[in-house]
């Protein structure tokens, strides 16, 4: 009988995800699953107004409800110097409002009770007397003289302007524009959307009144960094803080910031001497936690008449809400937005960005994106589409003509990025071939004659992920390295501890496979531990597609350290010289005599039982890896849509995705990441919008207003790959968590525009909803 040899999990093997056993049985362990003896529950009272002065807060009635243990207000926190906290962007944010509320949904008071229902009932009984102020919800209006001042409490802050930041070479760019035969321009708005992980944010804070030890279970994408920030914000001794990030039901950037609820629950546990749980509901998550995008962008491309790109000029205004709480490297006010030259060899570029305060929720997190790369990629890919329309060129040909060519790598972009590797043309060609591009264009031309609308959209994106060289990139001062600690037990099984933290990305499998590749221990025998600050080495966490580029590199490096020691042990066991020992797929053997070999398991045993003289026992090590550069994943996405002229509905007929993330460790997991990202990109492009009325009321506060695509409407994805290894990554891998969300929105929108451009429609801002498409058609007299 033929038996299948089980896959060990070497690089390139799609073994099943080790973590899925518990997930598919519903046996994951999330923050809301944590129940501790004597645990209290917290509910937050939020502001109904976008902008209002607080005249008084009366809590007597709430306090009197049986089961209520405490009502916490901003004044109480102020006594402990906790009413305000620092943000990741060096601003301050109110924990609980003391002077005024600055966005609808802002945290005003908290009730701690023995039961979550009681806490919620009592919160409704708190009486807040507000003096409503005019709100400002548009960043352009916010910068007008006389606009309501959002941050009147900040010394020296006399307007709503937050920052001005530039990248690239202004003079050189002006020269390029002066030489240009044509200037193509596009003004577009990347609307506010929300990461909306299925699990909302939450915490169980348990500070022992006896030992002072703070055990904090928290939905955190970056437990170590959060521990340090907790130490700084709350003044707790860092060695006494243990952050446990259990299973996390999606993060997408939403679980990078520290939220007021975490701070109050922790303070309450400290004051009350009991564990306190706070888990927000869906609306709380949507209206108060880190949103994404909200970028108003104006791009101009200087080109020759035959389509050569000479220069790029971008002006951008970001709407940061009431507090500048973007999560991004501290020296980069607009994140990595200056990757905006994309896949193109544009000799000159200049980016100017400003930020404004408004009466909207703070956040500006990188929703499945490496710090504003999504906005940048969207702008350049939409701009290239616009250029193709203006120049009457085929958009594929225009791209091809301007791609950075393989022999130009390593390539330094006009805004200062050092691209590691890429084969942009190859990815584009593959997408065109798989789509049957020429046939599609023919079909389109025939349909057009019959008055039918069909569009083909392309995006050839380049991402920059895996922050980052620690010299330049830090979060709140913490350099963006990451770490891995590997310990091989006597029986040859191992535990790998990481500073990053999975939220569904499959770390328990992918990182085990790196160990398999480097040491030969089967992936099932490698337990991966993350999310416990007492038991994993320090790291900056998982976001910005950095786990494989940084944590994965650390894993490879620490495995190699152990391999070097294993070689010494092998030489000892085989009575050969270390220089004569070779390693292949978990076997150490004497060169030229492969039968004289030892397995990694035998060596592991010897590491505890039979060591060469003078060698330390054990087989373990730790590596802190500071990447020499980012990695630059890329790809081409192609979308085909059909548009109904009567309803304006755009139906995605096909979606072809060619991704290049270098070496694929577990191809199935990579595919999964791409599928998820494409679905999110589809949602962003076609249906998602958090918007506000003039008074600042949030109009996207639940899932009937803020739409998440399901498998029903999401198109079928046809995925393909090219493989261009990263030259500086130990195993040649690049990040893949975010490519699809970054690259796909422009492809979807370009497809819609491609269907209607001949009618004179060059832009429709996202979400490209049916009513917007119909209105655009109606305006040019082309609607049914």
């Amino acid at each position: 009988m033929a038996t299948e040899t089980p896959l060990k999990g070497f690089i390139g093997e799609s073994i099943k995800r080790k973590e899925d056993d518990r997930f598919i049985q519903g046996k994951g362990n999330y923050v809301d699953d944590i129940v501790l003896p004597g645990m209290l529950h917290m509910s937050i009272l939020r502001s109904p107004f976008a902008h209002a002065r607080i005249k008084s807060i009366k809590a007597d009635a709430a306090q009197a409800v049986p089961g209520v243990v405490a009502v916490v207000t901003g004044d109480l926190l102020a006594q402990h110097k906790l009413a305000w906290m620092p943000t990741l962007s060096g601003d301050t944010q109110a924990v609980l409002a003391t002077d005024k509320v600055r966005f609808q949904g802002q945290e005003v008071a908290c009730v701690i009770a023995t039961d979550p229902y009681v806490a919620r009932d009592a919160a409704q009984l708190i009486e807040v007397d507000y003096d409503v102020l005019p709100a400002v919800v548009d960043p352009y209006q916010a910068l007008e003289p006389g606009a309501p001042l959002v941050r009147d409490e900040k010394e020296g802050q006399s307007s709503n302007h937050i920052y001005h930041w530039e990248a690239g070479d202004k003079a050189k760019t002006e020269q390029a524009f002066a030489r240009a035969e044509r200037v193509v321009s596009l003004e577009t708005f990347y609307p506010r959307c929300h990461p909306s992980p299925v699990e909302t944010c939450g915490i169980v804070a348990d500070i022992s009144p006896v030992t002072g030890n703070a055990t904090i279970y928290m939905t955190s994408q970056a437990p170590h960094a959060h521990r340090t920030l907790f130490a700084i914000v709350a003044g707790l001794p860092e060695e006494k803080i243990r952050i446990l990030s259990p299973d996390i039901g999606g993060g997408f950037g939403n679980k990078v910031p520290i939220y007021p609820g975490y701070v109050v629950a922790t303070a309450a546990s400290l004051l009350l001497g009991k564990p306190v749980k706070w888990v927000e509901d869906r609306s709380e998550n949507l209206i108060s936690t880190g949103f994404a995008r909200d970028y108003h962008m104006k791009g101009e491309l200087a080109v020759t008449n035959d389509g050569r790109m000479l220069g790029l000029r971008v002006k951008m205004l970001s709407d940061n809400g009431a507090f500048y709480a973007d999560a991004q490297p501290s020296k980069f006010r607009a994140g990595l937005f200056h990757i905006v030259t994309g896949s193109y060899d544009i000799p000159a570029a200049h980016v100017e960005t400003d930020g404004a305060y408004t009466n909207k929720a703070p956040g500006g997190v990188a929703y499945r994106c490496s710090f504003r790369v999504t906005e940048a990629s969207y702008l350049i890919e939409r701009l290239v589409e616009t250029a193709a329309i203006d120049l009457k060129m085929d958009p594929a040909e225009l791209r091809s003509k301007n791609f950075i060519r393989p022999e130009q790598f390593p390539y330094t972009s006009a805004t200062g990025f050092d691209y590691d590797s890429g084969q942009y043309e190859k990815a584009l060609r593959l997408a065109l071939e798989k789509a049957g591009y020429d046939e599609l264009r023919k079909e389109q031309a025939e349909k057009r004659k019959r008055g039918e609308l069909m569009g083909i959209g392309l995006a050839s994106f380049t991402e920059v992920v895996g922050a980052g060289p620690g010299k330049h990139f830090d979060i709140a001062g913490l350099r963006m390295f990451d770490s891995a600690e590997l310990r091989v037990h006597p029986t040859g099984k191992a535990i790998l501890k990481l500073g990053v933290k999975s939220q569904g990305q499959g770390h328990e499998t992918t990182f085990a496979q790196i160990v398999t590749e480097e040491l030969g221990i089967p992936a099932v025998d490698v337990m991966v531990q993350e999310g416990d600050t007492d038991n994993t080495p320090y790291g900056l966490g998982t976001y910005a597609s950095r786990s494989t580029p940084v944590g994965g590199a650390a894993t490879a490096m620490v495995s190699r350290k152990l391999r070097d020691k294993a070689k010494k042990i092998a030489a000892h066991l085989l009575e050969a010289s270390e220089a004569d020992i070779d390693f292949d797929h978990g076997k150490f053997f004497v060169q030229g005599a492969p039968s004289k070999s030892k397995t990694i398991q035998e060596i592991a045993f010897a590491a505890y039982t039979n060591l060469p003289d003078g060698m330390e026992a054990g087989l373990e090590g730790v590596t802190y890896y500071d990447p020499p550069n980012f990695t630059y994943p890329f790809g081409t996405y192609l979308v085909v849509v059909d548009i109904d002229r009567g309803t304006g509905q755009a139906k995605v007929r096909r979606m072809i995705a060619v991704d290049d993330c270098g070496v694929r460790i577990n191809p199935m997991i990579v595919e999964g990441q791409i599928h998820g990202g494409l679905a999110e990109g589809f949602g962003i492009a076609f249906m998602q919008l958090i918007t506000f009325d003039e008074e600042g009321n949030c109009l996207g506060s639940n899932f009937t207003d803020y739409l998440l695509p399901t498998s029903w409407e999401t198109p079928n994805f046809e995925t393909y790959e090219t493989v261009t290894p990263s030259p500086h990554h130990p195993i040649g891998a690049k990040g893949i968590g975010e490519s699809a969300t970054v690259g796909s929105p422009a492809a979807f929108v370009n497809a819609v525009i491609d269907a209607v451009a001949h009618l004179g429609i060059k832009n429709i801002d996202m979400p490209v909803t049916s009513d917007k498409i119909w209105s655009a058609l109606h305006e040019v007299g082309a609607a049914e």
Partner: protein
Amino acid sequence: MLPAPFEYSAPETMDEALDLLDALGDESKVLAGGQSLIPLLKLRFASPAHLVDVNRVAELDFLDEHDGVLRIGPLFRHKAAERSGMLASKYAVIAEAARQVADPIVRNRGTVGGSLAHADPAGDWGSVMLALDAEFVLRSKRGSRTIRARDFFSGPFSSALKSNELLVEIRVPAADGRKGGSYLKLERKVGDFATVAVAVHLQMDDGKVKSAGIGLTAVGPQNLKADRAEAALKGRALDDATIKEAAALAAAAAEPKADNRGSVDYKRNVVRVFTERGLRRARERAQGGA
């Protein structure tokens, strides 16, 4: 979900349920599939003191057709309507609407009666019943009354139903001869309420329209019956010109409001386009069907 506190009863018979409603009056709410009521409780937009759960009242869940009347029990689930072969073959408008209400999970629990009682102007069943010219039987401890669908809805989330009454039966004149129907719905995603939807039910006789029913969803303070469009079709052959005329009348009957889903012009246009397409589809079915 953290609703305000409430009492809960689960009667087993209709009489018990009616007794409870009579005793509790305005303090109570009937709980059927819970797919509209529970979200309201959860958001604390509603906080009734007492829930009367009627899911155990077997007498309220039925579907049958006899003596020229199709009878639907209020507890008849969306899912059951979606699966019924009889409805699919004779009442295309019901079958087609059923599979577009909400999403499969909501359809497993949600009921036709609950949806009508809820009287959401964006609800799908109201328009279907208007197109079918249905009647509703409302019963309280004190007696029962019958009301036509067109007189039942009185505004957003309001109807002729009194707090001590149960909707106990939906009656539809049985379809005979050549009939066809359609339900066209524009939604932003599966599980979304309609931006616009149009229900059409046609009975043809000798190539002419014997009767036509058109109901409009989400384009007014309640589900609307497009009377003038219906009248314009009656007795006429369904040629393209007639269809266009009726579609224009249906669009004129719509009273949409602008919101995140679209402008007034947009929604009115979709009513016109869907009425046209719906009538064509119904015509095809009527020609094809027995």
